[in-house]
């Protein structure tokens, strides 16, 4: 588990480094999902290093596409993209921007940016996988604020109706969106009961506990006969790892000046492995 924790730390530190290039970005959306990214890419998903187009790979896509800056370092780490491409984040002509683009970035399985489409696309992937006789799993990470989009619930109906047992959704339930707390803006609770009522298998997990998350994903993959899609509600902290971001919700979009960045890096370095 130390390795998975280390990769989550790597994801956070690289995010700070890359956002320094763009001078603005979504730190906290990455920090809430860093352990989830780590477990998915280094433990749960069937992937082949250096082979982003391997057709039997598990698929991953993000409705919360603005957290892509945390995903790109992992793609580079897995030899899906070159280091110098990573280091050119957001520069003119570079394929890496604030949101993931499947046409430009090897290892991105689906483009996103517009909130609420990803679970539908994941339904399509999972269904097509079954039609094609493939065994891959489709993972879709969505934000809790994203649940405000109506299309998510169209997909919820569709996934359950079509018994998409190889579709695994993950809600990064960090409680915040751009304008404030999800509860204050348009409440989406009770999340667990909603997904259960829509016919999904649900699991609640501490999204920063790599051991718990890894165990859950492994358990899910042992059930090959599952007919219900799965929704994991990952309890997370927006800005996890940087104290002043965890307690100040206004950091959905922001820029750390060099002194704040140094404090953030020190705090992340000090995170327990």
């Amino acid at each position, binding site marked *: 588990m130390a390795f998975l924790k280390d990769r989550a730390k790597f994801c956070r530190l690289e995010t700070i480094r890359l956002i320094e290039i763009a001078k603005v970005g979504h730190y906290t959306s990455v920090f809430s999902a860093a352990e989830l990214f780590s477990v998915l890419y280094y433990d749960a998903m069937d992937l082949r290093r250096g082979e982003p187009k391997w057709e039997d790979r598990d698929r991953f896509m993000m409705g919360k596409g603005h957290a892509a800056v945390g995903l790109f370092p992992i793609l580079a780490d897995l030899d899906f993209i070159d280091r110098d491409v990573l280091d050119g984040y957001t520069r003119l002509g570079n394929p890496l921007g604030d949101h993931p683009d499947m*046409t430009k970035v090897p290892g991105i399985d689906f483009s996103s940016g517009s909130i609420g*489409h990803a679970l*539908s696309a*994941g339904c*399509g*992937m999972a269904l*097509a996988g079954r*039609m094609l006789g*493939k065994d891959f799993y489709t993972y879709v990470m969505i934000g809790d604020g994203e649940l405000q989009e109506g*299309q998510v619930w169209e997909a919820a109906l569709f996934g359950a109706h079509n018994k998409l047992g190889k579709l695994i959704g993950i809600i990064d339930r960090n409680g915040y969106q751009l304008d404030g707390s999800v509860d204050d803006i348009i409440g989406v609770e009770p999340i667990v009961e909603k997904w259960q009522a829509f016919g999904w298998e649900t699991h609640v997990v501490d999204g920063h506990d790599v051991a718990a998350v890894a165990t859950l994903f492994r358990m899910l993959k042992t059930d090959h006969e599952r007919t219900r899609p799965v929704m994991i509600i990952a309890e997370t902290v927006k800005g996890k790892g940087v104290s002043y971001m965890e307690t100040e919700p206004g950091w959905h979009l922001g820029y750390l000046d060099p002194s704040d960045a140094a404090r953030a890096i020190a705090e992340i370095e000090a995170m327990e492995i």
Partner: protein
Amino acid sequence: MNKPLSDKSWQYRQLNAVTPGLDALSDALIELVAAGEPIVAGTADLQYSNGLAKFHTLHPDRFVQFGISEQNMVSAAAGMAAVGMKPYVATFASFLALLCCEQIRMDVAYSKLPVRLIGHHAGISLGFYGTSHHATEDLAIMRSIANLTVIAPADGNQLKEVIKAANDYPHPIYIRIQRGRDPEVYADRQPFKIGKAISHYSGTDLTIIATGSTVHPALEAARALRAAGASVGFLDMATVKPIDRDAILEAAGQSPRILTVEEHNVLGGLGGAVAEVLASEGLPVKLTRHGIYDEYSLIAPPTHLYAHYELDAKGIEARATRLLEGRA
């Protein structure tokens, strides 16, 4: 699977016992499945309207019923294409092009996924169902989306050929059809080339350029005018994007007047596309764009509407005559 239908039911009446032309879409897809293509067809609670019911019955494992969730259908089709399927999804053009505009832009076109979007009952063909169901903006919207090809076949036979041509086409396509039981323009199936206009006549007084459902009545109008002695050319501009610039420029070189005819707002559709080509070349041609004149269409049976908007053969002929006589 489809259950047997009562012969009193609306669904039964939509099937081929009453309206044989409705099967064109299914027939074309069935041919592709037979050829081993990874086709999947999807609909949003309209399998009897768009004629996919036949495909559903024959290939239930390749048919997806999305229910009344058009946006989910478009995004899911993109997901299916991303892992190697060839999805064809169909619903009313009004809902597909307008309700799902953003899903089409982001998930299909931006990502360059080979999804085929079938917008049926386009224009005012849904008649008395009301303006909500009329699609008179879809060509303009779809045409402005990068990477997206826009095709409006004139009849079932051409639709079949369009789908055949689409099979290996590397871009997403919006295919605009009417009711699937339009009068036949092409008795024989002629190979369709995406981006190439079909020239029926050339003329030195006027060239009529029509697309989709207006090809049949506009062609009748052209024939009547020719019979009366006018030199009238005719182009079926089935591919609205990318538009056949060469055919337009050739027509403009031959005739000093061009009349575009479409079951669509005159803004942004076929007429707009032709105007862009002519303007960019600075050609001294009198262009008249005929269609719905930037208004919401009335509610009436389709035949009444076509007469009202001069989109039937008689109306188009009258419109062309006014243009020929310098009255418009």
